[in-house]
Every structure is written in C-alpha cells, then in structure tokens.
C-alpha cells in the first residue's frame, strides 16, 4: 500500500468518524434529513465567501458555510412557524432554494475555478492528498486531513463537554428547559456543529453523500445497542469500517471512493438490520418461530388432556391425527411432538399414540384455569 493510499484511507476514516459523531444525535432527535438539508445549503456560504476572499482554502469559507447551515435551520423554523406548511415541507422548500442559488452562482461566475458542480456533488477525496499543508518548507501532510482532524477533535470536545445537556434536551426538552438548560441554544450550537462537519466532509465526499456518512453508522449502531455511550462508540467504529472497506471496494471496482464509502455504510446498515441481536430481522424471526412452537406445544397438551379419558382417545391422541385435527403439517406435528417429548410433557406409546406425562397434564391444566 502506497503512502498515497494510506493518506486517502486515513482521511476517509477521519471524515466518516467526524460525521458519525453528530449523526448519533441527529438520529436520536429524528432530524436525519436536516443533515441533508444542511449539507446542501452550506454550499451557498462557501460560494459567497469564495467570491469575497477569492481563496478556496480560507477558513472564512468554513465559517460562512456554517452560518448558512444555521440560516437554513432558522428559515425552516420560521417557515414552519407560519403554520402554512409542515416541517418536512419547510425543509424541502428551503434547502433547494439555497442550494440552487449556489449552483446558479457557480455556473454563472465561477466556471473557471475548482468549484465545479461535479466536485460539489461528489467530492474528490482521491485528490485530497495532492493539496499539502506546508509550513516553513516542511510537508505536514494533506491539508484536508488537518482540517478534518480539527473538525473531528471539535466534535469530540463538544460531545464530551455537552454530553449531558445534549442527552437531556434530546430525551426531554421540557425538563431541560425547566432546569435552565436552554434547548434552543443547545439545538443551534449542535446545528452549527453539524454544519461545520458538513463543510469539512463536503470537500472530501460532496454534498450528497454526507448524509449517508452522518446517518448510516448511527442508525446501524442504534439497532445494535440500547446504551448511548456504546451507541456513540459503535457509530464511530462502523464509520471507520465503512470508510476503509469503501476505499477497497472503490479500488476493486475502479469506481468513485465517496460512492463506495456510502455504499459500504449502507451495507453495514443492511447487515445490522438483519443480524442485530435483539432488533434484527433474523432475531425476530427466530423469536417468532420459538413462540410458535411453544404455543403449539401448549395446544397439543391441551388437546391430549381433553381427549385423554374419552373413548375416542385411541383415535384422537395419535401423532397422525394431529394434522387433521390441529391443521398442522405432518412435519410440524412431528416437530411439536418431539419438542413436547423433550420437555417431558408427553411419552410416545405403541404405534404413534401420545400420552401426557403428569408434568404435561399440569401445564395444560395450569393454562386452562388461568
């Protein structure tokens, strides 16, 4: 692996983890789509600031972008407050307005600079290592690695400093307000953080895929754990895994790195959804299956009890009869009888007769008298 590959992967990991951290609270606050809106509207800030300072590497661009992110959030809230549109519609109205204005400005006035529409939409992580940060003639590595590293550190600091405020205002905004923690202030500080993160990630992966990096790892982690600190840690881990595997997928397919990273994050979510220990699809199928068999076992013992001393017992209480009486397939009937026998609820007699054990009788009676 070349130094170039290593730097791209390192950057991919840093971008992904930096996005996943605020993503945790976006998911918990049910504001996932707002991250998409922010990542689009910050472009306007970048463009306007670029016209002003004429330098794509100026930190002013980050500040202006973050400010447009906040402006977008405020505009959405103002539009929603008029009660003429619902919140989701307000989001869908505001961010395309800002984004399209930015696209217009770029195509009209900035055609010759690096700010082209492709780069805006998909980023250019593969080229990031070519823009170096040099101080006094020393090469300190890719410029965007430093910027994203700084943003990651900022996210970590914010999360550590305001962990409990974020938690309480997310879980119970009313209580947070009653205790004097202003949920509005926390909301805007947090949105500012999301905006800054989106600006940084934007450079690497473009405005469309930022939302995948912010939402997919936390949404996966949410399925894997019910503990918030663990959810944060898992989100970071899954983000890093998606970044590295995305890089190698892109290498294998000779395709876009940003696209592959988002795809990998999507695959991680798919796997989590299938295999999560408690909330996963497989787990719930197994659980339903178990419940089905144990309910059938109960039905079987009740059936046996009902016919135990009747003249028809010899006919009714046979394995072969169950499929007719309980409408079970012969396979399922055998499976249930096996299970009941294993659990000590019945014994097999001559032929395929089934006899309740005292334990089985007890279980059936217990259920019927409940």
């Amino acid at each position: 692996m070349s130094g170039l590959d290593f730097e791209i992967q390192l950057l991919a990991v840093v971008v992904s983890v930096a996005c996943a951290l605020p993503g945790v609270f976006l998911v918990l606050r049910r504001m996932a789509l707002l991250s998409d809106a922010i990542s689009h509207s910050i472009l306007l800030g970048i463009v306007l600031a670029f016209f002003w300072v004429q330098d794509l590497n100026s930190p002013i661009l980050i500040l202006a972008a973050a400010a447009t992110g906040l402006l977008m959030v405020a505009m959405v809230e103002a539009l929603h407050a008029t009660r003429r549109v619902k919140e989701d519609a307000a989001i869908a109205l505001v961010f395309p307005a800002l984004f399209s204005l930015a696209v217009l400005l770029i195509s009209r006035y900035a055609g010759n600079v690096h700010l082209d529409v492709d780069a805006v939409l998909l980023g250019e992580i593969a080229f990031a290592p070519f823009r170096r940060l040099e101080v006094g003639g020393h090469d300190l590595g890719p410029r965007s690695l430093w910027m994203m590293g700084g943003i990651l550190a900022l996210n970590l600091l914010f999360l550590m400093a305001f962990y409990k405020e974020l938690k309480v205002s997310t879980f119970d905004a009313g209580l947070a307000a009653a205790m004097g923690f202003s949920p509005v202030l926390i909301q805007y500080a947090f949105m500012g953080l999301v905006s800054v993160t989106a600006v940084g990630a934007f450079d690497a992966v473009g405005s469309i895929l930022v939302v995948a990096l912010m939402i997919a790892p936390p949404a996966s982690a949410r399925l894997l754990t019910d503990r918030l600190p663990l959810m944060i840690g898992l989100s970071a881990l899954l983000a890093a895994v998606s970044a590295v595997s995305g890089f190698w997928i892109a290498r294998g397919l000779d395709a876009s790195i940003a696209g592959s990273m988002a795809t990998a994050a999507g695959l991680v979510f798919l796997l989590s959804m299938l295999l999560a220990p408690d909330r996963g699809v497989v787990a719930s199928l197994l659980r339903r299956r178990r419940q089905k068999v144990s309910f059938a076992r109960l039905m079987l013992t009740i059936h046996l009890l009902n016919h135990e001393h009747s003249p028809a017992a010899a006919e009714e209480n046979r394995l072969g009869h169950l499929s007719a009486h309980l409408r079970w397939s012969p396979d399922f009937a055998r499976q249930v009888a096996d299970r009941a026998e294993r659990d000590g609820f019945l014994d097999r007699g001559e032929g395929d007769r089934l006899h309740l054990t005292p334990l089985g009788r007890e279980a059936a009676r217990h259920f019927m008298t409940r």
Partner: protein
Amino acid sequence: MGAPEPAASLPDGGPAIEVNDLTVAYREQPVLWDIDLEVRPGALTAIVGPNGAGKTTLIQSILGLVRPAAGRVRILDRTIQEARSEVAYVPQRGTVDWDFPTSVLDVVLMGTYREVGWFRRPGRPERIRAVRALEKVGMEAYQDRQIRQLSGGQQQRVFLARALVQEARIYLMDEPFQGVDARTETAIVEVLRELRDRGDTVVAVHHALQTVPEYFDDVVILNVRRIASGPVSEVFTEDNLRVAYGGRVPFLQAVSDAPVADLPES
C-alpha cells in the same frame, strides 16, 4: 432524601406560587385569560378542567417555559429564574421518546443535571441519591433496565423518581396518574402525601375528577379563565364544575355509586 425541611424555612404566610393577571395566547387566541392564583405551601393542589382548558399551559407558564402575553408568576416570592432549584417538573409521560437508548438510573440522574451544572457529570453521591429516589417509588430493582422495557406505570414512577432526586420544595406534575395501573396510582399518591407532610408543595394536573377529594387538599378549576380555586371542601362543587365543563360533567354521572378506587382510569 434528606431530613424533613423545617416548616419555618418557608416564607411566613406567603404563597408557594403566586400568579397575577396571567394571560397566555397562541396566535392571538387566549389559552389562559387573566389568571389570578395563589398556591398554598405544604398542600396537594389539583388543576382540573376540560381538554383545552390550559392546564398544561398554566404549569408551563409557572415554569417559565411559555412566554405570557401579560401577568407575572412568583415562586416563593422570587422569579422562576431565581427559584429554579426549588422547583421540580414532571412533564406528561407521552412527551418523551421512551425508545431513547438509556437506562432507568440514567433518567433519574437527569434530575441532578441542574445542580451538577454545565461541563460536569453526576458522580457517586448523585448516583446514591438516584437509587434512593428509585427506592421511594419501588423501582430500585429496575435501575439497570432499558427504559423501553418499562410499562406505563413504571415509566411514570421513574419520572416521579427523577423529580424526587431534585430535592425541590415545589413539584409541578402534568398528569402523573395518566395511564397507570391502580397499584402505581396508590404508590404515587403515597409519595405525594409524604412530600406534603414534610412541608413541600405539589401541584398536579389531574383528569379523574372522582379522585380529587380523596387525593388533594386544594383544587384549581380552570377553563381558560380560573373558575375557582381553594380548598377542595369549599370550591369543588357541582356548580363550579358545571361552569368549567359546560353542563356535562363526566364526574357527576360516574360518581353515583361506584366506590372511588374501582372507577376505571381515564
């Protein structure tokens, strides 16, 4: 909780909560209209009224969560900002996301966040207090449970514990009995009485009119305006309720013979 607060620490004869000329409007529609109110310290006070009467808004105005169009609120003769540490709030259970990834103990610990303050985390002393608060409501065995596994009654008890851990002198509760089982209701009433007996003040939005005389000392009857307020024995009358509920009082029809405890929960 610590030793009982001596009653002498209350301002002499002053009300626990004083509301003057309070008017709250949403989009020029009055939700609360010119409310005057004094809440007696060391009493259990119910706020009753039909849907849309402004009960929740009244609680939130007292807490300073809603900006009034007019009027003022004093708590222990101070503003709410000055009196935050004296006030604990129990919002309606349904206003939060019970699927949030956190444990019972963690939710109770949230009650300590104000005194812990910005940038710091609750530590061992706070944990001990949180466990004690859970003991008070009979939920200590559940402290490590994820909150999504709780029943409605258990959720409400956790909320109550979170208020208790604040060690406040005024407790404002929005429908603490909503959707709880009979056993939980009894347990909550017991805790509220204990608070009152040490001199604390409890104000609760309450829906089941038939239990007002049994559970509460005072009552505020509300329907945008304050219809009546004072001791239950004096103001909880058919006439006042008719004014508030507009002639059709659910309680007056239900109360005829059923013993209070057997009535279905609202």
